């Protein structure tokens, strides 16, 4: 048997230098900032690719977003060698919070690969712009899948339909834990940013090379793999999606007040050698105290 694999990806602002633009007050200039496949979505696509190479499988990738989000799907396909791309695009989906987004994604995932049940769904850790990290687990819950977050490594027992995963559980101010967990399929995996797949046998490397070549070719013709679905095609109740389906609203956005001035800084010009010498003296005095 092979696996039915799904990946959820997102088109996000590209925070890399040269693509990102900030307003003078330090906030993101969304109009001037380019968009691309989110970094964590790329890692999720890579995890799906690894699974396909190692165990065999059919990969379906989906994204909810405006029509231009298809470029994120294309990029994800070039990483993962996806067999199918789903874009959930509808004005009714706009401004959804995580619960209303999860409703759309759940419904879409149920329609992947001609309605077969998925074995593993991958998502990124969190989006770089929204940063809630909620959409993945909420989609998992609506699907009824076991959710495994912060996964840094995994293997599948195809015969018994089990997954073995390593998770990095960070508890700030306390401990970090590496946990090994087993769960029956199907599962939903939010992949940790530190995940790095290794193709450690010659046969895996060969398969990987072959699929990667195929992936690049497919991504050129990504439109022939692409299926755009609106709420009607997804058979979604408009009251459960977009703003009407969102329990939460953004009430206001304000600038965070500047921290109170706690110290009055001595200003030293960068080319003031004596000033810098004095600072070094101060550093050395403090260390030697």
């Amino acid at each position, binding site marked *: 048997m092979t696996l039915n694999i799904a990946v959820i990806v997102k088109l996000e602002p590209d925070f*890399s230098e040269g693509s990102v633009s900030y307003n003078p007050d330090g906030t993101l200039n969304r109009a001037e900032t380019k968009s691309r496949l989110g*970094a964590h979505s790329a890692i999720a696509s890579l995890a799906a690719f690894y699974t396909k190479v190692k165990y065999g499988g059919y990969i379906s990738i989906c994204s909810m977003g405006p029509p231009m989000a298809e470029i994120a799907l294309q990029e994800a396909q070039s990483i993962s060698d996806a067999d199918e791309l789903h874009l959930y695009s509808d004005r009714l989906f706009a401004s959804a919070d995580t619960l209303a987004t999860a409703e759309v994604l759940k419904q879409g995932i149920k329609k992947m690969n001609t309605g077969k049940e998925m074995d593993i769904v991958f998502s990124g850790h969190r989006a770089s712009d929204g940063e809630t*990290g*909620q*959409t993945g687990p909420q989609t998992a819950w609506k699907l009824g899948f076991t959710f495994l977050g912060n996964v840094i490594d995994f293997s599948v027992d195809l015969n018994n339909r089990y997954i073995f995963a390593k*998770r990095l559980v960070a*508890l700030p101010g306390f401990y970090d834990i590496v946990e090994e967990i087993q769960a029956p399929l199907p599962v939903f995996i939010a992949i940790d940013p530190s995940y790095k797949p290794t193709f450690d046998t010659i046969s895996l490397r060969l398969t990987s090379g072959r699929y990667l070549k195929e992936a690049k070719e497919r991504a050129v013709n990504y439109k022939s793999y692409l299926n755009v679905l609106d709420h009607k095609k997804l058979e979604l109740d408009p009251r459960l999606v977009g703003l009407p389906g969102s329990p939460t609203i953004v009430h206001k956005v304000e600038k965070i007040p500047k*921290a109170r001035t706690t110290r009055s*800084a001595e200003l030293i010009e960068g080319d003031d050698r004596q000033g810098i010498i004095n600072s070094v003296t101060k550093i050395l005095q403090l260390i030697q105290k």
Partner: protein
Amino acid sequence: MAMITTNKIEHNRLTNNNESYRHLFVIIESLNKELIPSSLEMLGEARRLMDNFNLKYNLNEKVIAIHLGDGIKDLSQDLIYYGADAVIYSDDPHLKYPINKIYTKVISQIATDPNSIREISPEYVSAFKKPRYMFFLADSIGRHLSSTVLAELDSGLASDINKLVISDLEIKHQHKTKGENITYKKILEMYRPDFSGFLWTTILCLDNKNPEIKKEFHPQACSIIPGAFLPIIKDTKRTGIISEYHPHFNEEDLKIKVLKQELVKNPVQFENYKIIVSFGRGIKENPEDNIKLIEKLAKLLNAEIGISLPISKKIFHLSEKYDSIYITPNRVVGTSGRKVTPLIYIAVGISGAIQHLEGMKESDFIIAINPDENSPIKDVCDVFIKGRMEDVIPLIIEELGKRLGQTREKEKEIQVNTYGKL
């Protein structure tokens, strides 16, 4: 007569808005029978909020700590001492590890079962549907747990909150109120710093009052940034009700098993260093060379290296080596990362978003190197060196090299003299 008046007040209370939604549930986390400290921070904020709430609305709603685990019963008393009015715990070997699916179901059972509050507030049992508010921790456990619990309870959730206010708000919203002005009572305003650290977004979880999409959304829930609030001072005179809840488990769910847990030491131990040198977007002109420069400075000072939050988003193209050593979440200083208080903090090319400043401003001595004199970081530092890091750091390194060299020479001299005397 007096009796009737009391009953009337009680009646008024029960027919007040949202009578089916009561209390603030705080989801406590523990590990190996030890409470995770940030759980107590949540309880502290919950205590402050509900004290004001009860005063303002003349109500008697409670802070209820919800705690699951194996052998954790004895921690309940501490939760009372730290601000809870009551504790509902489930103590069961199946709850030894915080397995998302199992914990989600148990918490959801507690949150929807009127019997769970029978001992705690018998007066609300008959009307109780769900909690009014719910708090989780925004860590690797609570972030996901909050998401799945709120998906199960079919209500709204805001993540990574660092300020909370409860108030009555007049809302006019296309969908929620169909464009009408409607006053919502007892709304939890959840403040969330955005990724830049410069904006605060207030999230509200509101019922749909619009007749076309009418729906109630409770609880109003959020995950709270560890370190955002202070716990109350432990008060062993505080008393409260401790109540056990016996959950139902689904056989299928018990096939999910934790095989092993290993505590790992964070490789970045800021606490062990007297000096921290952190860098931000100011390295942009020549990222890798500039990191090498900072590395050199840190080595001379025996300092650990930190980064600002934007840097952790991998915004620069770096070689694999530098990327994997420095561009990691465990180096982030700030409320989204670690709070540090070294003897000397050197901020290189960091403008000073509030979330960064909150994480370092209590350092003993702060030096900032930045070309922009108007950067907010200037307000919290002792020395502000106005200049590009590429120009300033080499000067510091040169001077430090000379002086440390001298010191070492001196040390050698002393050693030689000592030997000489022998």
